[in-house]
């Protein structure tokens, strides 16, 4: 069933690739430079999001200032590793591989009943701690790899793959990520494969989510960027249950996009009435 109208140009996501490249490369050079760091550290999953972040950083900072870390678990697909290697060749960045199987297995030997979600979250957070350790080791910022689609849907692990210091692709929908990746020379094998969190063999994001990125990007673009109301979306041809399901996901994952809730006691509470730019003092 078609859940979102395909032919209405109104809902086509704009993708001015040369403009995106210009702005995102300048963004990285400016915002990383201000912190006094020259380097970034990025976890390479073999997927397109981390590939694009790394490719942008290589352009902005020079490939010698980007360290890509592959952190496979024993069940991770072998293609993920070869794809990440192909990206390193294409961009000229340095990579290293750090296996996480031992520490993950040691932990879950105490909790053998843990389901795929718990295991996946644990792996994502394990990888995060490795990236932040290398951030300290290298004096480099952890580069974000979450796109706008997954940030809005909450399709990511809080304090895991969602954790970073700076994210060049967080305002790009997945379909825009694909297009820009192609333009920047990310290897086709990375762009063309079905997106997957690579938690279990054969798993794909689109099966997990129950809709395609092409469909949900059109809906999110209309709903979030263009501020179409529910009845306007239905009138435009989006299926009601699809709209409701996605709207609920966005709402329920709001906590993942914010700091923890702080109980207000004082006259000046952090992030409520103590307000400064994140770039404060940089």
């Amino acid at each position, binding site marked *: 069933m078609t859940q979102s109208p395909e032919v209405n140009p109104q809902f086509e996501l*704009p*993708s*001015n690739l*040369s*403009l*995106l490249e*210009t*702005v995102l490369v*300048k*963004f990285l050079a*400016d*915002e990383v430079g201000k912190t006094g760091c020259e380097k970034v550290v990025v976890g390479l999953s073999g997927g397109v999001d981390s590939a694009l972040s790394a490719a942008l950083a290589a352009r902005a900072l020079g490939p010698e200032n980007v360290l890509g870390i592959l952190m496979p678990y024993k069940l991770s697909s072998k293609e993920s590793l070869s794809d990440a290697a192909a990206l390193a060749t294409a961009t000229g960045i340095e990579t290293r591989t750090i296996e996480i199987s031992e520490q993950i297995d040691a932990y879950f030997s105490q909790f053998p009943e843990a389901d795929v979600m718990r295991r996946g979250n644990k792996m994502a957070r394990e990888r995060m701690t490795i990236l932040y350790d290398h951030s300290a080791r290298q004096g480099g910022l952890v580069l974000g790899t979450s796109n706008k689609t997954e940030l809005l849907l909450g399709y990511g692990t809080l304090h895991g793959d969602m954790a970073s210091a700076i994210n060049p692709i967080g305002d790009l929908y997945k379909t825009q990520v694909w297009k820009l990746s192609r333009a920047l020379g990310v290897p086709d094998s990375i762009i063309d494969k079905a997106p997957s969190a690579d938690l279990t063999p054969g798993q794909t994001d689109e099966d997990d989510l129950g809709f395609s990125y092409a469909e949900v990007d059109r809906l999110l673009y209309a709903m979030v960027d263009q501020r179409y109301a529910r009845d306007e979306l239905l009138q435009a041809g989006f299926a009601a249950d699809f709209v409701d399901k996605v709207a609920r996901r966005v709402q329920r994952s709001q906590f993942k996009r914010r700091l923890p809730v702080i109980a207000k006691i004082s006259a000046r509470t952090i992030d409520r009435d*103590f*307000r*400064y*730019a*994140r*770039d*404060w*003092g*940089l």
Partner: protein
Amino acid sequence: MADRFTVALAQVSPRLADVETNLETYAEQIREASGLGADLLVFPELSLTGYHLKDDVSEVATRLDGPIARKLREMSKGTAFVAGLVEESPDFQFYNSAVWFEDGEISHVHRKVYLPTYGMFDENRYFARGRRIVAHEAAVARVATLVCEDFWHPSTSYLAALDGALALVCPSSSPAQGMAEDEDCDKNARTWELFTRATAQVYGLFVFYANRVGFEDGVGFWGGSEIVGPDGEVLVKAPYYEAAMVCAEVDLAAARRRRIVAPVLRDEDLDLTARELDRILRGRQ
């Protein structure tokens, strides 16, 4: 007032909440503009302080009788300039102001009237609102100053033109946002360019638009500063997204010619406008 003069625009990337560093940038830019023979240099909105100041507004504010303003006055003894800063008034209000420094003195202050407080903007939370749109006699010409969002309200350029301005001076901190296919700039930049050029043509005046560049908290500013002539022609244009200084000679005779060709201002019926405004106001009460 001269018939011909040279205007420079300083498309800078200020450092957030660091007035001392930004003052150094001002000094360098003034030297450069002076080398180019500029009679007037326009700095972007809040370029002495950075834009996303939030709770730092009071920390970086400048008293016009204080030491920072004294330095700025000193710096204006060669080339006149328009500074973008947080002005602290004697009654402790904070304004997003464009301040004219000419020949060692403060010759005019425009306090931003329309403080955007929607979308990514939160200015009304931090700033007091200006209450006046007026033209004033600058050394170069009779001009009116409109800070960024002021320009988006057609009433401001209308008032300025009727008040005799031959140029609109617009310091800006305009963010890059929105995307269109096959453009070399973002959507916001393109919209601004429609406004500056249409306004110049409608009223037969010059527009000196000085926008900043750089990033704050992920927000990029698009630059693209420009001097637009009275027939909508762009006399000079700075690049998008990178720091630059541009400068052009302005010949007021072009405004004269435009107003002969398209005498919109001559035909403007102020009484009608006043009557209709009065009617609309009464209807709203």
